[in-house]
Structures are given as C-alpha cells and as structure tokens.
C-alpha cells in the first residue's frame, strides 16, 4: 500500500440531503451515532495502509475541516505525508466546470505525492473495506482503472448510481453516462476506483483546454475503449447516501447487528474525531429497545428503534421512536418524537410532538427549538 494514495472527491455543490446539507457538504453529514459520512472511506484507507490522502472539496466545508483537523484521528498525521484538505484556490466558483477543474488547481499535490496509484472515492459511501484485494486485482490485470461494483439484489437499492457491464475476466465494457438508461445490467458502479496516478495526472493536465472537466464522465467513461478498465465485485456491506430517504434507511440498517458488527469491527475500527464524553447514563425511568446510543447521553425516557448521537438528553416520560437524534439535542419531558431526524443541538420542549411519516422522516434543522 506504500504506493497507493487516497483521493476523496466531494464533487457536489448542491444539497442532496436537504437541510442536512444546508450548511455542510455531504461528506460531513453526521451518521451512525458518532461518525460523519467521510469517516468510513477515510478509515478504510487508513486501515488498509494508505498514508497520503487528499480530500477535495468545493464549498461548505468548515465542519469538515473542524472534523478532520490534522488527520491524527485517522492515524494520518505522518511525517511528510498525511491528510490534506484541498478546496478550490479561487472563488467565485461560477466558472467551475467539474472535479478535474479542482484537481487542476492542486496539480502540485499530485506531482509531489510519491505514490503510483490512487484510490479515488466519493465522500458519501458507508463501508469498511480492506483495499488490498482491489489493489492486487488491479496489478494482476495491469489495469489502468479498477472500479468497485455491486450485484443488485433487489429493487430500490443503489438509486442514482450508474450501472456498468463487464466482460468475462472483469474488463468493463460500458458504464452508463446517465443513471437509469441501462436496462440490461444488474451491476452498479460504486464510486470507489483505483487508478494509475500517471493516468490521473494526464487527465487532469488535459482537462484545461476544452470544457470536459468531469473525471468520471469525460476522463473515464468517454475513453473506456482506450483504457484497461476493470470491475471488481464488492461482496460485503456497502451503501451510498444520495437522498434523505437513503440516509434514513441506511442509518436504520445499523440496528441490524450483523451489519453493525461487519461495519464497525470486521476490517478494523472506523475512526472519528473523539470527544470527551462520559458513558451513557440510564436513569430510573429509562426504557430502551433496539437502539444505538453514543456516549454522553442522559436517558430518562423511552427509546425505540432509534439512533442517539453524543450528548443527547432525553427527559422523563419522553418517547423517541424510529428516529435519529443528533449531537446535544434535548428532548423535554413527555415529548414525543417519531420518524424524525433532529439535527445537532435542536431542542424539543416538554409535551411537544414531532412526527414524520414512515419512510418520509421530518427533519428538524440544526439548533432549532420546537
């Protein structure tokens, strides 16, 4: 892995997760009780032995910076290499034409990095992967690019993801240019791929002259005939978060202990920024069932099928069901929360009710009082 660098590519300026992405980029949306989305890919890289990771980001990345700090929490604060946060050099971004544009601003980072291959990943993927299988496969095939894919098991999975077709041996023949146009494949491309750094640099260097500035669309899909592009199946748990509905559904999947154990323990720990919180305290009135609770919570109420982030305070008689309650929220006495996502530090007064619909949770924005 000494020869592999990491590139986390947060290439979206809009708000795929509605209010949850109102003031933060998708990679820094809180997830799983104490993590942020970016933690999963970043930990996978670190646990796989990647020592040099560049996080490319466009806007709304202050919470991401606060979170990642110097990379130490992911064991990435090394001498010489480590973690680099790389926003565009110049604003306004009105002329922004795609991720290669941002990469181009930081060409010297790629030149300086000594590695020969790069794992390029999106920032919204929940997984815990040891990348050595991918790297070995890539090298055995002398591939230019090797892309993770998943076999679709049922409907509704991996919405908004592109499909791809492979030949025997794994060579990728085609990737959807527009998601939803390929009917005859049940393989979806996961936006984690390994590529030769020389090729990546070439694509970046060539991206200025013309208007084609998307690494995936213009660099890879359009050149698929000329490049040795391979697909590599991923068999373990993996999910992609592109909408509030997916966010909610995949959060709740963590209550499945098989997924919980696979995601959090199987290939090494998932790292995140640590906080100095005491253990959860269950008081006399507590009643908790099928839920995840992070440290620092004080529980006096009733909690079912929910995920509580750090430092949440649930007062006596309050009932929380099928909900996600983020850091430092407070739920007053006898309040009722159902099918809801409460962003950080929001506050529900005693007796109040917050209810969303099954599969269409209501979102309470950050620091809001209800």
């Amino acid at each position, binding site marked *: 892995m000494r020869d592999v660098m990491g590139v986390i590519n947060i290439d979206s300026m809009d708000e795929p997760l509605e209010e949850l992405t109102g003031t933060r980029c998708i990679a820094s949306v809180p997830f*799983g*009780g*104490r993590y942020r989305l970016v933690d999963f890919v970043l930990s996978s890289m670190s646990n796989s032995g990647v020592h040099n990771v560049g996080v490319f980001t466009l806007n709304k990345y202050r919470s991401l910076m606060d979170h990642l700090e110097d990379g130490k929490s992911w064991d990435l604060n090394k001498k010489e290499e480590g973690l680099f946060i790389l926003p565009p050099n110049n604003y306004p971004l009105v002329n922004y034409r795609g991720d290669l544009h941002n990469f181009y601003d930081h060409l010297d980072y790629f030149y300086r990095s000594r590695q020969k291959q790069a794992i390029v990943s999106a920032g919204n993927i929940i997984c815990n992967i040891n990348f050595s299988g991918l790297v070995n496969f890539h090298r055995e095939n002398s591939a230019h690019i090797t892309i993770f894919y998943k076999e679709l098991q049922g409907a509704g999975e991996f919405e908004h993801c592109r499909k791809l077709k492979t030949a025997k041996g794994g060579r990728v023949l085609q990737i959807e240019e527009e998601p939803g146009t390929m009917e005859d494949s049940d393989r979806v491309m996961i936006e984690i791929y390994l590529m030769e750094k020389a090729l990546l640099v070439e694509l970046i260097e060539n991206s200025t002259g013309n208007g084609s500035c998307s690494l995936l669309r213009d660099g890879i899909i359009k050149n698929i005939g000329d490049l040795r592009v391979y697909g590599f199946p991923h068999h373990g748990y993996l999910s992609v978060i592109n909408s509030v509905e997916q966010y909610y559904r995949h959060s709740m999947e963590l*209550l499945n*202990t098989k997924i*919980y154990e696979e995601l*959090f323990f199987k290939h090494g*720990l*998932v*790292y*995140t920024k*640590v*906080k*100095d919180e*005491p*253990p*959860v*305290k*269950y*008081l*006399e009135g*507590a*009643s*908790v*069932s*099928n*839920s*995840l*609770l*992070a*440290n*620092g919570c*004080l529980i006096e109420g009733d909690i079912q099928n929910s*995920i*509580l*982030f750090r430092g949440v305070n649930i007062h006596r008689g309050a009932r929380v069901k099928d909900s996600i309650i983020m850091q430092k929220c407070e739920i007053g006495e006898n309040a009722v929360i159902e099918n809801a996502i409460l962003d950080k530090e929001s506050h529900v007064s005693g007796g109040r009710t917050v209810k969303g619909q099954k599969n269409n949770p209501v979102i309470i924005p950050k620091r809001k009082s209800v």
Partner: protein
Amino acid sequence: MIPAKECVAMLLAGGEGKRLGPLTREMAKPAVPFGGKYRVIDFTLSNCFNSGIYIVGVLTQYQPLVLNMHIGIGSPWGLDRKSGRVAILPPYVDKKGGRWYRGTANAVYQNFYFIDQYDPQYVLVISGDHIYKMDYSKMLHFHKEKEAEATIAVIEVPWEEAGRFGIMITSEDGRILEFQEKPQQPQNNLASMGIYIFNKEVLKKYLHKDERNSKSSKDFGKDVIPMMLKEGCRMYAFPFRDYWRDVGTVESLWEANMDLLSDKPALDLYDRDWRIYTVNPNQPPHYVAPYAHVKRSLVNEGCMIYGRVEHSVLFPGVYVGEGSVIKDSIIMPHARIGCNVKIEKAIIGEKTVVRNFCQVCSLEKEHPEIILIKENIIIPENAVITSTVIGHKKVN
C-alpha cells in the same frame, strides 16, 4: 488562571494498592479503571488542568507501564503544551547509584531537581488515589491569603471514622494547632485529604531535614507535617465540602462506582464546566437489543446488551447475552457475559468470559461480599461462583 510557573504539582502515583487484590496485580492503584470509562488518576489530572496547573510531575514506582501508556505526554488532559507538561518521574540511577522511593516525602525529595527547573513559588502535592473534583486554584488563593507556609485540604468525616484518618485540630481562622495521625480518641473530625500546598523553599528545607532523620519513614503525613507543626510553621487547613472518596479497598471502589448511579450523584460526570478527561476509546455507539432492559446504569460505547442490566457500570465493549441479569456490578472493558448468566454485586475483570448459565453471586443474602473475578479468564458454562476468583487457575 494561575500563571504557568507559580505552582508545580507533584502527583504521587506509586501506590501498590494492596487491598485492591487482583485489580492491582498488573497496575498501580491510580491506574485502576473507574466509572465505566476512567482510571482513578484521571480525576487528579483533570483537576490540575481545570485549575490551570499545567506542570505536573507524576511519581511512579509500582507497575508503571499501564500508567505510563495512559498518561503519555498528557494530551488527553490538555497538558501537552509549550507552557506546561506532564513528566513521568520513575526511580532512577545516578552517579551515586539507584534508589527506590522510600516514602512519599522521599519520592518528592529525590525529584526536587524537577521542581527547581521551573522555580515555582508553590508546590502542590497530591495523590492519584482519590475520586473528587477540586479547584486547586481556590486552595492556592486561600494559601496566599493566609500567608501560610503549608496548607492542607481537610474534609469532615463521620466521628466514628475519624480514627482512620490524620485529624487536624484548628483554631477558628483555620490555623492548624495540632495533627493527630489515626488517633484512638479523635478530638476533631477534620481529616487530611492528603492534598498539600507548600511554599517551595519551606518544602525544600523540611524535605532535606526529614531525609537526614534516619528514624523517619519519609512520609508526608507521618513525618514531614508533624515535624513542620512542631517547629512552628504557619500551617492552615483548607476546608473542602464536596464529594471525596479514597478507593483503596474493593468495597470503597465498588461503592464509589455505585455512587455514580443515583439520579443526582454528588459527583457529576456530566458537568461541562469541570470535565473529567481520559484517553478516549474508539468504539461505535453501544447497542441495546429489542428485549433488553437497562436501568440506573452507566454504559460505555461498543457494548452490546441483550439481557438485563440494573444498577451497574459497564466499561467499553462489554457483551451481555440474552436472558442474563447483571445487578449491582462493575463489568470491565471487553468482558463477555454469555446467555442466562446471573451476576450480582461483582466486579468482572477485563476481557474475562463468563459462559452461559453461570451464576456469580454470594450465598450471603444480608451483606453479601463483593465477588471479584480477575481479568482474561474463562468461566465455563454452568459454573457457580460464590466468592472471589483470583490467581492463574481457571475455574472448571
């Protein structure tokens, strides 16, 4: 905020903690786990940081590895700064040979060069054996106000227990008139907490003097303080009225843990203005299963609970199987409790496995003893444990 060099703390962390049995077989008493997340020494270290005392010498001697690893350079307590630091001070060899520490006073005496480096006006001497939250800067303020040469923090103890402590007789304004070490007939119930502030030069003088006294046991409480009093030093008692516990026995350790479980405990771990810091584990949120039941308990991250947990403290990564009942107990990190196990008033050691259908509880119903099960062992299925399990043998 105390300027960095006004006061240096010397933290005595060499205690063997004999009465803690197997808990201190492989670590010093200050390293003993506490409260579902902490080690005992975290309280004094956090007190130092929160009081603005950033230079702390930690005197170690007995089984220091766990403590050394835990403390490192003090980062968890914010003590790894340019204007402050934690220094671990183990016994060492110099040109005159090697000398183990022969008592608390001798330990500080041997490391006085460390204090001198910073040339502070005051030296705070504390021990890493107690659970409490205290603002040492207030005590220092009191010390300066009284123009004292030494100040000793004191707490009122029940009269019937006073005989177990060093007892102070004070004048109305707090000046110490007399000191009685474990008196048979105590004349007062103000007990020394083993927290001292000295004017540096005064301390230096009396440590040298004590060192030359061949009859001295080189102990602050037994030797240095009585000598200073005898010689007429200006010494004051600083009254402390908050929660304070010595966790030197299995019973007191267990009780101090249980104290945390009341709805409004005297020691509040959730106070954001006086946090207790420690090394953070990196574990996912803990999971409570559909038919599990958790009440009046502390549970840390990484736990998976399928059974009943009542009035207990669970450290990180503990697994409790279906049908099991855990009551009035302390379960150390990564212990694994199988299904249909019953555990009552016990302390289960780190990484120990208690297999299905085991029973761990005393036969005595009125005043059951605390059952201690050591770390890293396997209790096989159906075992019935009614008393402490130590030693290397595995129960069968």
